[in-house]
């Protein structure tokens, strides 16, 4: 029986090789996802780009692909995003603050925590059914922006809560303790220390969840978003359509032209998401700089 020492030395090359193989496998994992994504984007851009025009952006959905536009859907998606931001962000950040800063570690808090974690995994179509039952019928909001916006808010609320909790939890306890030591109250600590320090992390979660909300189709189908519409929504209880709804409808059309138009709509949706994310990221960077300045 050789000693462990010799065994260790004898196999150093093979272990190094194995390490390299592992690194290679992990690299392929990384690249594979990116390649699939790049293929998708290239395919969509090649198919849809010829259809992008000013008429397409500012027009209304019509019965031929050539005459169709996406304007009411862009406005609808923008309003939906505002409703979700106005409803889900304060609620989500508030819940995260309560759970991290106020709640004691008892069975009730744990029950709430488990429920929030599970809610984040509920399929969006289930939220759609909930929204149809509660907002559309029970509250009588109809097939409106408000009903859809509230439904999407519920959908992303758990994600905002969890990511805000992570951001708040990562603040060193010493920060709070030094503020308390100077006589700050709990709410002063939260407003002047916890929230500002956690804000970049919270915003990251908000960006991700707003993007998710804007890309959802199933809940919108259920709460009854329109497909053909000849006006842009003027208020919260107005009817509306959204970009994913048109993509969904156009891919189902028998003609090839509409499917190419769907690709153009996907480009618009991607651009829309990049623009809104960029705004949020700039805001986040600004906050980070202000804090470290």
């Amino acid at each position, binding site marked *: 029986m050789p000693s462990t020492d010799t065994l260790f030395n004898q196999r150093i090359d093979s272990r190094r090789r194995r390490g390299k193989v592992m690194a290679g496998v992990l690299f392929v994992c990384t690249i594979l996802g990116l390649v699939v994504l790049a293929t998708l984007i290239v395919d969509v851009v090649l198919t849809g780009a010829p259809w992008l025009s000013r008429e397409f952006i500012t027009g209304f959905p*019509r*019965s031929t692909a050539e*005459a169709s536009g996406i304007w009411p859907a862009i406005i609808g998606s923008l*309003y939906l995003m*505002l*409703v979700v*931001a*106005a409803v889900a*962000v*304060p609620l989500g950040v508030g819940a995260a603050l309560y759970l991290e800063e106020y709640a004691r570690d008892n069975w009730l808090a744990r029950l709430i925590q488990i429920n929030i974690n599970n809610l984040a995994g509920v399929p969006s179509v289930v939220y759609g059914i909930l929204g149809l039952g509660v907002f559309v019928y029970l509250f009588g909001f*109809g*097939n409106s922006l*408000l009903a859809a916006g509230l439904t999407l808010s519920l959908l992303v609320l758990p994600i905002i809560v969890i990511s805000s909790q992570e951001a708040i939890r990562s603040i060193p306890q010493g920060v709070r303790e030094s503020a308390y030591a100077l006589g700050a109250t709990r709410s002063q600590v939260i*407003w*002047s*220390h916890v*929230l*500002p320090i956690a*804000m970049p992390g919270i915003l990251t979660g908000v960006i991700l969840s707003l993007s998710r909300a804007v890309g959802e189709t199933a809940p919108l*189908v259920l709460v*009854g*978003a*329109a*497909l*053909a*519409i*000849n*006006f842009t929504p*003027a*208020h*919260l*209880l*107005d*009817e509306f359509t959204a970009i994913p709804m048109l993509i969904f*409808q156009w*891919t*189902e*059309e*028998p*003609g*090839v032209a509409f*499917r190419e138009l769907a690709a153009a709509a996907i480009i618009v949706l991607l651009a829309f998401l990049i623009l809104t994310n960029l705004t949020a990221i700039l805001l986040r960077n600004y*906050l980070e700089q*202000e*804090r470290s*300045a």
Partner: protein
Amino acid sequence: MHRSLPTSLPRRLGIFLAVTALAFLVAACGGDSQTVRVDGSSTVFPISRAAVDAYQEANPGSRVTASSSGTSAGFQRFMRGEVDVTGASRPIREDELRRAEENNVRFLELPIGYDGLTVTTHPDNDFVDCLTVSELRRIWERGSTINNWNQIRDDFPDKSLRLYGRSPASGTFDYFTAAINGERGNMRDGYNASDTDNAVVQGVSRDVSGMAFFGLSYYINNRDILRLIAIDDEDPDTGDGCVLPTPETVADGTYQPLARPEFIYVNVDRMERNPAVASFVQFYLENASRFVAEAEYVPFEDDVYARVMERFEARIEGTMFGGEGPSIGVGMGTMLERMQTSEAPTGRDVPADDDNQTDS
């Protein structure tokens, strides 16, 4: 820690959001109700959209929305009074008539055109030209174990058979099962069920052993990647032998039993309250033949549209079909006959134009 900015920024954001929300809510008080709402079958949707399109061009400033929740979901919303017009790829069913009665919904039933269901294979399939309805039934009916072409006919090659079709949520599925297997929902296990016609087209066009069913317009748009199968309904009254689906054979009733009428249903109370609804339906019917053709379905003859218009103008309420659901083999002749006789209604829930309200 710099207090000043971090404290005020969340607050400023909050104020901005609150003001935005408030502005929205204030604006909401000025909402108007003159919107015309259309929903229903995804098959009828392209026709209705063509109508919405032309209507808004002729009436700038009008407000019309259209969705395609499907025939059954459309009827549900229709019975709750959420939509003014709903499209249907089959006549109203018994259970839906009951809902109408419970909710005191009075409706007009207006046929607007024909759709044909096609049976297709991969273009490289060179041995099938025609199938009889009884052969189709043996393939598709509940309990069928046919998985090889030579089980259909002895002179077909020994080649596995794979089947593609719509999922049970669709009116297309309802109609195909009722027409071929004699009962709505009677369908075998082990076929590739898709939620969209395009997915079915993609499936069969890539599978040399495949067979599929879907709407005629999907064949017309994909004819170079599909092979069309003629259907023999073994009934000499509706054309002898094998009949290929074409706009002509669908319209003259020889392509049977896979040709079906499409309808719109109009809520009478909502039409009386909102003049825009009546104006929209009038416009829809006046130009129906154009809209149906634009959507790549098969229009009726002009005299049928004239009769539909008479029904609309006389506000003849109720159904011509007595709640039987998918109406198999309703050719042009039958349709004309039904429209003539329906003024002396046989079905319940068919008040004539003497506007007798249902009990309540």
